[in-house]
């Protein structure tokens, strides 16, 4: 059998046609993504129903029926104009400075604000990959900032900053302090532990492995218990650190074990050739690590580091359990206020807290994804 067009030569080029409407544009997109088969149509309908069921009540709760201002619980109780009041934002507004500063003395709160600003500045410097002199940024963030913050928040009477005991600190301030200390301490400690785990010295390796695996094997809450209950036993009375410091130690140790594993992952991804090249240049161990290996390893693993920070940030809520007034604990305390006791006070408090944590964590995760995409692009080049 022989085809009529067995031999063929195209005389005129085939016309470039626009795609049929059914396969492009809004119609095509909707058809392909929502209604491509009977099963798909059913799913679409179920999901749409779910959205209709969930979203309008949420919007009503958060915005349309929400109570934005008021002096006490009366404002958030069902009334003639608002038979089913939504979120009681008036309650949040009334307590907002407590949520931010705890019982930090009113006249000294500018110190907290300044601390927030200095911190934001440091984060921006380090997070912006194209920023100038990020090495100085690192020194600022890991050395200058901690000292400055300590002076600022805790106070040095000689230079005119009165002492503010940590028992007065609270709210977002404490949450941020715990998270920052965790981050600032865990990265260097984690790097040391990761290097220790890969060290050739048996004692160092044994110590690192034991520490890392032990801490990763137990819940943070037990580490915090240990720090808050056992630590005072282990040191002489006069050295016993205050409650917040004990929790900070627990968080820092806990975070560094996780950070160590993340850094180790980064170290493993550096090809052997890099070590060999550095050694061929006669770089001693610490130089090799500091100049060649770690810069690459930390860069590769930056998204994972940020993810660890996100976990750490969420975990700061656990200090609540050992009696520290972090942001979540202030919410817990405030929602019990009889002035504001309504059926929706608790929900409002939790919703507000959730929004706060979500914004922080989601922001960090978007950042980490951006970095990841950028690294992937750099890799392909």
């Amino acid at each position: 059998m022989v085809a009529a067009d067995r031999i063929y030569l195209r005389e005129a080029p085939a016309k470039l046609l626009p795609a049929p409407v059914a396969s492009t544009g809004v119609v095509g997109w909707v058809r392909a993504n929502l209604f491509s088969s009977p099963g798909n149509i059913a799913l679409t309908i179920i999901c749409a129903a779910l959205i209709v069921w969930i979203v309008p009540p949420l919007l009503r709760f958060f915005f349309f029926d929400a109570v934005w201002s008021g002096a006490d619980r009366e404002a958030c109780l069902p009334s003639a104009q608002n038979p089913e009041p939504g979120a009681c934002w008036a309650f949040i507004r009334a307590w907002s400075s407590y949520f931010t500063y705890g019982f930090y003395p009113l006249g000294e709160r500018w110190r907290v604000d300044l601390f927030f600003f200095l911190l934001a500045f440091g984060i921006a410097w380090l997070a912006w990959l194209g920023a100038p002199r990020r090495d100085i940024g690192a020194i600022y963030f890991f050395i200058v900032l901690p000292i400055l913050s300590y002076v600022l928040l805790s106070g040095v009477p000689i230079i005119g900053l009165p002492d503010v005991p940590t028992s007065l600190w609270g709210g977002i301030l404490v949450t941020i302090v715990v998270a920052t200390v965790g981050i600032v301490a865990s990265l260097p400690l984690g790097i040391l532990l990761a290097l220790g785990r890969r060290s050739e010295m048996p004692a160092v390796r044994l110590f690192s492995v034991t520490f890392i695996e032990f801490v990763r094997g137990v819940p943070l809450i037990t580490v915090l218990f240990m720090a808050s209950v056992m630590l005072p036993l282990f040191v002489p009375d006069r050295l016993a650190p205050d409650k917040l410091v004990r929790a900070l130690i627990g968080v820092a140790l806990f975070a560094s074990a996780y950070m160590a594993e993340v850094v180790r992952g980064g170290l493993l991804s550096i090809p052997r050739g890099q070590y060999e090249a550095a050694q061929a240049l006669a770089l001693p161990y610490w130089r090799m690590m500091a100049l060649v290996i770690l810069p690459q390893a930390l860069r590769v693993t930056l998204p994972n580091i940020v993810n660890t920070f996100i976990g750490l940030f969420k975990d700061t809520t656990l200090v609540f359990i050992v009696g520290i007034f972090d942001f979540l604990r202030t919410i817990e305390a405030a929602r019990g206020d009889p002035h504001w006791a309504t059926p929706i006070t608790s929900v409002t408090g939790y919703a507000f807290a959730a929004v706060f944590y979500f914004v922080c964590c989601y922001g960090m995760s978007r950042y980490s994804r951006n970095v990841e995409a950028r690294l992937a692009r750099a890799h392909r080049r």
Partner: protein
Amino acid sequence: MSKMLQLPLRSRQQWASIALQAALVVVIGGLAYGAFINAADNLAKAHIASGFRFWDNTAGFDISQTLIGYSPSTSTFGRAFWVGLLNTLLVASLGIVLATALGFTIGIARLSRNWLVARLAGGYVELIRNVPLLLQILFWYNAVLKSLPDLHSSISISGGAFLNNRGLFLPRPEFADKFDYVAAALVFGIVATLAVRIWARRRQERTGQPPRTLSFAFGLIVVLPLLVFFAAGAPLSFSFPEVGRFNIRGGTEILPEFAALLVALTIYTAAFIAEVVRAGILAVSQGQTEAAQALGLRSGSTLRLVVVPQAMRVIVPPLTSQYLNLIKNSSLAVAIGYPDLVQVFAGSVLNITGQAVEVIAITMAVYLFLSLVTSLLMNLYGRTVGIVER
């Protein structure tokens, strides 16, 4: 291990390394010694005993959920430990099962070709992952379960169950003697189903007939026990909960603390498992699916024979660490007073005895042990799904 770096050592470096290690040992030893001395000193001053003798002393406090017999006036601290541990195991194992089911569903939904489904699943994951677990537990407990109506206006659910702010009260099944036959039939059904499966596999090898055992399984595991159940005269009755003046009598009670913890752990961990599953499936290249389809495999077979086995190899290790996280996170029970190991032991027992060192050491040892066992089990499972890179 194979990637361990071998640096050439020269003798000066060797000395340096020995010195460093010695210093490490001395520092740690010194710290430990100092801690020991101080602890002994501080404990003596506070008149707190040491050692594990407290284990056999009478506990004297009540526990709201006990899976094994426990009475505050006669049971020991040791007994309280086991009660707490069992409560931890209960919530953790149920949580693992439920979170796995939910997580796999959502992970697969995230890859759905239906845009809306994928978006909804994605929204779930983003929302849940970025809100602290403790906040979620508090929300479920205080804002949802504790704000249910009180005892007298309990919500009654069809089938004789009640829901109020003290918990969920369900009818408790009471089995008559003849129920043993039903149980036996069920066991028989399961064994027979396994046998049929093996037989069907063999037959497939011999004749090529594909194994279709679903209807057999249904018949043996569902229909047969049901038949026996009715043949034996329905040997099952329920003790229904009744709302009294001050409490609810009869039935089984599910504590709001338990429910809140379980719901929060499940929802939270499922979001992470969903990400693990999604990554695992995405790790199987498009080419694998295409090759299977080009061979004429149906989409079900393609998934079962080609995609899932490869995805599982990627999924199992991170899934294991999610399970470990769930077990460790169950200790947040302490925040709402669910009597798990930490709440009972590191909480009540520690407060009463004051023996912080022993109690916390035991608690940590238990979690280390649980982590170890879970990793081991998952490694074994990993072996069966063939984590081979031969």
